[in-house]
């Protein structure tokens, strides 16, 4: 891995040196002409993010003492571009990694480096890269630093745009795992044909149609003395996308051969067995979109579709594919962090429907500025699985279903009353199978009602005050919660927010605690500094659809981000 690193760096030096040469020439030819310098010098851009926290032990909320007292996560990206040529590196340091992240991240180093060459026809990348085939159900590599998730492939990628609307790409490499790479080799090809580009007759058609297919294979040596395990595990997928005026329909089917691994073992007659069943997944989305109205209906079925480049890996580690959850991603604190759902890769059925409607401005119901209504329903349940002892696997009928995993009904109404004042109210009813979703025992299925009131008042054109009140009502789990947030923003630089979460309904009186928190921030163009102090509740923190458990903490945290 290091050898490739130094190779990339050598290329970097050589290129930037030559960039400098031509740059100097340009300068002697007349540095006043900024325009002519541009392509010759090349450009460097990047970003930086630091998150630091100082921890106070707080036995009441269960925040343990942290030996280092101060923990920090940080990274810096540098990307150099000169015409069709791009090189980039990311230096990461986790000294030591903030609580709630995978502790295996401890360390520092260059965790990402690449060189790429792009033309209209061909694009070649060596080193680390992120890519996605279709909806990602057989391959998706991406990075989400806020969650400590990075499954980049370290290897090579070729993308070609063949004439006639045909797009092809191929990838090979090993995946990142913390500051190392995993044992398996991932190979994949993907093709897509956009029929409106292929057939000139369809070029201006209102109906757009494309088809795609992918094949991915993982090689990992079978080092198990007792079991015969497949060394080459292949997966494939086929997809389509159709839009016609206001209507849209897209879908993908994915399949994987048998792949006994740590995450799909099953208990039979008191013994944990290897699972030799194949896997499959199907996803379908239908949409209708017209001015003032949007509708989406989705369905997904997943069976034994966890796919990793190390059969012994678990958690957010060495995932090759991505199985999107068909539930609404909430933003209000209690709905987002207490009972969020994540796809169960071993088996689930999920359906979702959502309607968004804008009542016209100026109408009697809509008011002067219009009123917006959003209704969402999502439902996920298990498969009806039966043990197939002869094959050492699990069978499930296609339409059969097992226990309820998650259900969410939510309604939001928002309205701008005057130029200065707007309000939103939202109600949720969430049913959450805590045992299944969080992999625990004895918590059962929780039903909770959540209500939110969100009021914004513009004091002056650049000054705004926002008050948010939330309540979560349940007699189960930790009981009911109340939240109040008051936020003052002074555009374009300052904000201050005070927040209190109160677990007033906790069945244990000692745990009926307040979690006060204050945050101040300063933003200047693409840089932002935020300083916070207070108690943070143990909970689930989600970004872009995946979530991690965050332990309770008490202390000061400082976060700095900038892009340049």
């Amino acid at each position: 891995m290091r050898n490739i690193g130094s190779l990339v760096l050598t290329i970097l030096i050589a290129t930037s040196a030559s960039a400098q040469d031509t740059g100097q020439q340009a300068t002697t030819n007349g540095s006043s002409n900024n325009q002519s310098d541009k392509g010759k010098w090349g450009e460097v851009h990047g970003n930086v993010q630091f998150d630091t926290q100082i921890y106070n032990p707080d036995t009441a909320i269960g925040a343990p003492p942290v030996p280092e007292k101060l923990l920090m996560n940080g990274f810096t990206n540098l990307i150099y571009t000169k015409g069709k040529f791009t090189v980039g590196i990311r230096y990461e340091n986790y000294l030591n990694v903030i609580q709630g992240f995978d502790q295996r991240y401890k360390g520092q180093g260059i965790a990402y480096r690449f060189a790429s060459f792009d033309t209209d026809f061909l694009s070649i990348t060596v080193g680390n890269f992120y890519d996605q085939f279709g909806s990602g159900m057989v391959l998706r590599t991406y990075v989400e630093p806020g969650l400590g998730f990075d499954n980049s492939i370290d290897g090579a990628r070729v993308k070609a745009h063949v004439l006639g609307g045909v797009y092809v790409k191929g990838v090979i490499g090993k995946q990142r795992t913390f500051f190392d790479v995993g044992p398996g080799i991932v190979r994949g090809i993907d093709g897509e044909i956009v029929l409106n580009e292929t057939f000139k007759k369809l070029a201006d058609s209102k109906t757009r149609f494309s088809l795609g297919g992918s094949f991915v294979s993982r090689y990992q040596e079978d080092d198990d003395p007792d079991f015969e395990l497949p060394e080459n595990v292949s997966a494939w997928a086929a997809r389509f996308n159709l839009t016609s005026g206001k209507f849209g329909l897209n879908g993908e089917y994915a399949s994987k051969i048998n792949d006994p691994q740590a995450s799909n073992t099953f208990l039979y007659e008191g013994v944990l067995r290897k699972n030799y069943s194949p896997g499959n997944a199907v996803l379908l989305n239908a949409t209708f979109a017209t001015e003032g109205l949007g509708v989406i209906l989705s369905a997904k079925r997943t069976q034994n579709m966890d796919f990793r480049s190390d059969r012994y890996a678990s958690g957010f580690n060495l995932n090759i594919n991505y199985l999107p959850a068909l539930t609404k991603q909430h933003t209000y604190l209690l709905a987002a962090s207490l009972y969020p759902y994540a796809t169960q890769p071993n088996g689930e059925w999920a359906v979702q429907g959502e309607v968004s409607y804008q009542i016209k401005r100026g109408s009697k119901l809509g008011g002067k500025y219009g009123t917006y209504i959003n209704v969402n329903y999502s439902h996920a349940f298990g498969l009806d699985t039966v043990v197939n002892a002869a094959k050492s696997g699990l069978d499930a009928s296609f339409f059969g279903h097992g226990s309820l995993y998650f259900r969410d009904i939510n309604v939001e109404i928002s309205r701008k009353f005057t130029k200065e004042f707007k309000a939103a109210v939202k109600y949720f009813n969430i049913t959450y199978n805590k045992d299944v979703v969080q992999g625990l025992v004895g918590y059962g299925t929780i039903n909770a009602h959540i209500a939110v009131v969100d009021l914004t008042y513009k004091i002056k054109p650049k000054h705004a005050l926002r008050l948010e009140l939330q309540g979560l009502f349940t007699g189960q789990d930790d009981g009911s919660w109340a939240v109040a947030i008051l936020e003052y923003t002074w555009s374009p630089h300052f904000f201050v927010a005070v927040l209190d979460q109160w677990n007033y309904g906790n069945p244990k009186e000692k745990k009926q605690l307040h979690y006060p928190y204050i945050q101040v921030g300063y933003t200047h163009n693409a840089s932002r500094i935020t300083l916070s102090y207070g108690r943070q509740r143990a909970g689930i923190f989600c970004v872009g659809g995946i979530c991690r458990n965050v332990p309770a903490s008490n202390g000061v945290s400082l976060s700095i981000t900038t892009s340049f």
Partner: protein
Amino acid sequence: MRKALFLAALAVTSQFAQAQIAKKDWAFPSVALKDMEGRPFNTADIKNDGKPVIVSFWATWCKPCILELNNIADVYADWEKETGVKVIAVSIDDSRNSSKVAPLVSSKGWKYQVLLDENSDLRRAMNVNNVPHTFLLNGNMEVVYQHTSYSEGDEEHLYEEVKKTLKK
């Protein structure tokens, strides 16, 4: 080996110091995205007849992003008339939510050009840490201003920057 790497990195950094680091006007990168109809769209093809362009990174699950795009939508017709500026809303929703983009955009009545950056390729090329993050491109499609996060009233500051690009 570590030392060699470090020295190499130092050498590179010093070379870069003489190249154009984060200079004010920089060319918008070329990244292959898709529009809401699934049509391939390369960001090198972003143009607006010599007029400025606002590129706003957002997501369906990001409240301040939607607030920003709603507030700009209220004044967008005036902005277009006065300056010819065009807004491109780049959604970073992944495959969990990307199908929800078109229904959301049309229900809100937004008139923006919308692009889907399903695996954050443009987001990484533009070094965007978090959404919302907004870029302003001048008539030559060079980035002249960028802003992260959104507070009520930020659009007024952005519009001042739009007008500045016309004076040059």
